[in-house]
C-alpha cells in the first residue's frame, strides 16, 4: 500500500492524487495554497475533480476551496502547453520595450497572451514583475528567469524549447 497509484480509497477506485499531498501537509487548511501548488506541479494543472477531495481532507466547504483556486492567478484548471513563457508587463520592463517585446512574441508565436501555440509546445502569458527590474525586459521560461531579452534571444529561447 505505498505510492500514489496503489493508494486505494473505500470505493476501490484509485485515490485522488490530491490526497497524498494533503496528507503531506498534515491536512492543514492553512496550507491550501501550498497544496494547490504541489498538486499543480505534479499534475500540470489543478484537476477540478480534486477540489471536493481537498475540501473533505481539509474539512473545508467545496466553495471555499473553489474560491481559493480561482482567486489566484497562478492556478489553472486546464493543462497548459509543455512550456510556459511569461513576459513581464510591469513598468520597469515597459521602460525598456516590454510592449514591443510582447508584440514581437505574439507575432512570432502566432498567439495572444494567454494562448497556446498550435503545436501545443508553448503557452504565452503575462507576469507582473520578476524582480529583474535593472535588467529589463525580463521573461520567465518555465521556472527559469531570463533578463535583457530582445527579439534575437527570444527566438533562440523558443528554438531551444522545441
Amino acid at each position, binding site marked *: 500500500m505505498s505510492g500514489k497509484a496503489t493508494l486505494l480509497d473505500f470505493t476501490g477506485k484509485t485515490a485522488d492524487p490530491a490526497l497524498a499531498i494533503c496528507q503531506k501537509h498534515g491536512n492543514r487548511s492553512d496550507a491550501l495554497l501550498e497544496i494547490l501548488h504541489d498538486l499543480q506541479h505534479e499534475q500540470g494543472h489543478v484537476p477540478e475533480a480534486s477540489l471536493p477531495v481537498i475540501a473533505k481532507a481539509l474539512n473545508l466547504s467545496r466553495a471555499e476551496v473553489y474560491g481559493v483556486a480561482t482567486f489566484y492567478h497562478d492556478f489553472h484548471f486546464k493543462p497548459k502547453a509543455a512550456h510556459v513563457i511569461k513576459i513581464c508587463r510591469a*513598468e520597469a520592463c515597459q521602460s525598456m520595450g516590454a510592449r514591443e517585446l510582447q508584440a514581437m512574441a505574439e507575432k512570432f508565436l502566432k498567439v495572444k497572451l494567454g494562448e497556446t501555440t498550435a503545436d501545443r509546445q508553448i503557452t504565452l502569458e503575462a507576469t507582473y514583475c520578476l524582480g529583474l527590474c535593472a535588467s529589463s525586459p525580463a521573461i520567465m521560461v518555465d521556472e527559469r528567469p531570463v533578463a535583457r531579452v530582445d527579439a534575437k534571444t527570444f527566438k533562440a529561447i523558443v528554438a531551444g524549447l522545441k
Partner: protein
Amino acid sequence: MSMKIFIPRDSAATAVGADEVARAIAQEAAAQKLSVQIIRNSSRGMFWLEPFVEVETPQGRVGYGPVSEKDVKALFKARFHEGKPHKLSVGLVEELPYLKNQERLTFARAGLTDPLSIDDYRAHGGYEGLAKALTLAGSAIVTEVTDSGLRGRGGAGFPTGLKWKTVHDARADQKYVCCNADEGDSGTFADRMVMEGDPFMLIEGMTIAALASGATKGFVYIRSEYPAAIATMKQAIIIAEAAGFLGQNIQGTDRSFRLEVRRGAGAYICGEETAMLESLEGKRGMVRAKPPIPALQGLFGKPTVINNVLSFAAVPFILAKGAATYKNYGMGRSHGTLPFQLAGNIKRGGLVEKAFGVTLGELVNDFGGGTASGKKVRAMQIGGPLGAYVPAAQLGMPMDYETFAANGAMVGHGGIVVFDSNVDMAAQARFAMEFCAIESCGKCTPCRIGSTRGMEVIDRITANEEREANLTLLEDLCQTMTDGSLCAMGGLTPMPVMSALKHFPEDFGAKKPRMKMAAE
C-alpha cells in the same frame, strides 16, 4: 593554493548567463590544470556588470563584467585568474565609486559571502545582533528598535518599534512573526536580493522580532515569481536550525522560534498585510477591514508582527551596533538608510543603499548614469505601481518620507523606475488603471469597477472626445477611488494617474504650451 573565483548566484546574474559562465570557467580551469575554487556568492547589486566575475588577489578582489561564456577563453589567456588586465576588467571592486559612495549597513555582505554559508555569515558580523538580543528582555529589544527610528520599509513607513511594542504588550497564548516578502512593486528587487543573497540576515531579524514580541512561530510569505528566493530561504532555515540559531532552544537558551516558508500565488494584493494574512491562512487574498489591527488580531486572530523583508533585515545591525549608530544616518524623521533600487531605463541599474536625504538626481544621474538609451530622463515612477510619476524637474528632491509626501509622491519601497523621452505618459496612466483592474481583490466598487472605467475615460481623453468633460470625470473618479477604497490598491492608483496628467498634460492630447506660443 587554489585561486578563488566568485560568480554570483543571484537571479539577476543567472538570468543573464552566470551559470553558463561558471561552468565554462570550471571547464577551462580543468583543461589548463589550474586549481580554482568557484564560489557562488551573492550579487554586489551592480546589475549592468552581471555576470560579474571576481577574483581574489593580494590587493583585494578584481572584477570583470559583464562576462559571457564566449569571453572565458580570452580571460584565461589574459590571466584574469591572477587579476591581470583585460578589457572587461573594472579593477579593484571595492574602489568602484558606485560601491565606495554607498552606505551599506543592511547590504554590508552583498557580494562578499556565499549566501548559504553560515560560517561566512558569522565571519562577517552575522548573528552579533541576536547574541545581543538574547541578553535582553523583550521590552529592552523593543526600546532599542524604537530608538533607532526604524520605519517600515514596505511602503507605509510606520514606526517598527511601535508595532513591536503593541505585540509585546498584548497578552495571548500564541503570537506570530510574519515577513512580507511579496515584493510586488515593479522596480524593486532588494527583498529578493536579501533572500537570495543573505538569507540568514532575514532569519536573524525575524528571530530578534520573535524574542522582542514573545512570538514562537513565524512565516515568510514569498511571491511565487521568486523561485530562487523560495529555495534559498528554505535551505537557510534548515541550516540555521541545525546550527542552533533557530528552532527549539536557540543557542542553548529556553527561547524557541520556528519558521516556515509559504508561497504566494501571483496576486499583487497579497502584499497588503491583511490580504497576506488571509492568504497565509489558506484563504482568498481579500483585504480585511482595520481595526482590529494585525498587531492585536493578526494571523489566526493572534497578535502578529508583520514587517517587510528590509525592515527585519535592518534589525541585526541595530542590535549589534546600537540604536544611536543607525539613527545618526538620515534626515528629518527618516532615519537610517534605505536600499534604493535603480531600475528601468537606466545605464547603471542596481542596488544603492544610502542614508535618507540623498537626492533623486544623485541616485539617478551620479550613481545611475542617466538612461540606458542615452536619451533624456523624462519621468521616474517611484514607490511602485501605486507611486507617483515624478518629472525630471524634481530631480533635486531629497529622498525622505515627508518631503515626498509634501510633493504628492511617495518613497515606498525605494524603487525608482526611470523612463526616457520615448515614454507615453497617457499609456502609463492607463496601465496604472489596468493594473488596478487586474489585481483588485474586488471588495470595493470604486477599485473593482472604477479602474476599468478609468481606462475607458483615459482612452476618450487621448482620443479628444469631449475632452473637458472627460477630464473632470477622471478627476471625480480618482477622488471616489481615493475616498471610497478600503486599502491603498484602489486608494493610491489615482497617484500615478493624476501625477502623469499633472506633469505631462501634453501626452494626453493637450495642446503643447510651445505650440500655443507659436500661434500667439
